[in-house]
């Protein structure tokens, strides 16, 4: 067939079938984009696990370097520092009031922590 004018060539070009992609291409695109599996842990959870692991390593190093007495001394110092303000009833009352207010405010902002957590669990199950 001759393509003497532009229109004939255009018609032939537009009628040209597209290349057939490999059979599994679409599936592999979708599994890396829209339908990629949800990550096992969120960034917050990974940060939390990392912090816990760092504390454990630190404590193990403390035991290895200074023996049991230094370890016990350090732990009791930490516990007493943390527990001192918590033993005060007024401090606890203020903490409770703050938490309740924060929770109440989530009803207006739409970022309900419990609802979001249950949604994420549902997503993972799917």
């Amino acid at each position, binding site marked *: 067939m001759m*393509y003497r004018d532009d229109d004939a060539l255009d018609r032939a070009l537009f*009628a040209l079938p*597209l290349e057939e*992609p490999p059979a599994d*291409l*679409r599936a592999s*695109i*979708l599994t890396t*984009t*829209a339908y990629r599996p949800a990550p096992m842990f969120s960034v917050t959870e990974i940060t939390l696990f990392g912090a816990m692991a760092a504390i454990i390593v630190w404590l193990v190093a403390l035991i290895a370097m200074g023996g049991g007495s230094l370890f016990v001394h350090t732990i009791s110092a930490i516990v007493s520092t943390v527990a001192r303000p918590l033993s005060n009833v007024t401090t606890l009352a203020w903490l409770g009031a703050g938490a309740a207010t924060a929770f109440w405010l989530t009803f207006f902002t739409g970022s309900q922590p419990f609802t979001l957590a249950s949604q994420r669990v549902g997503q993972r199950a799917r």
Partner: protein
Amino acid sequence: MTQPEAADGDLVAMAIRGNPDAFAVLVERYDRAVYHLAFRTLHDVEEARDVTQEAFFKAFRSLRTFKPGAKFSTWIFAIAYHACCDRLNRRKRYASEEMPDRADAGPGPEQQAIALDEAQRLRTAIDALPEKYRTVITLYHLQGRQYEEIAQVLGLPMGTVKTHLFRAKEQLRRLLSGAEVTEQ
């Protein structure tokens, strides 16, 4: 539920809002065309596959940068075309492979054309074009007469696109008429 006939822009908006099915519809609409562009540019099944996957991955990750009112097809073709250019440059740099600015190795279009059907003859002739003309013709095939969009994908002025297209068609006609002569 995603409407399969929804406009591309709406699907992008839905995908940004977290609807995975919306992006899946866009993939269904354009994966074949993007693969076609990559394959026609690179002439390698594996590389064309990688480029297609890479293009959709990049698009998915930067959906928020998609300008409202722009055409998704132009955007995804531009991403794929740039990925193809990167690969062609890498080939040139590391493998001292010749840029496909010429006909492919193997029997020329004249020899092959005799046994091939019309579409295959046209494909063979397109393959024999220099790379810049081949890409313009491929995009013309995919986008139709949307010169402005072809220019956007290639990052070239519209005048250059029109010139390339004119020369590409001229060369195509010459190649195809050459095959015709061989057939007779």
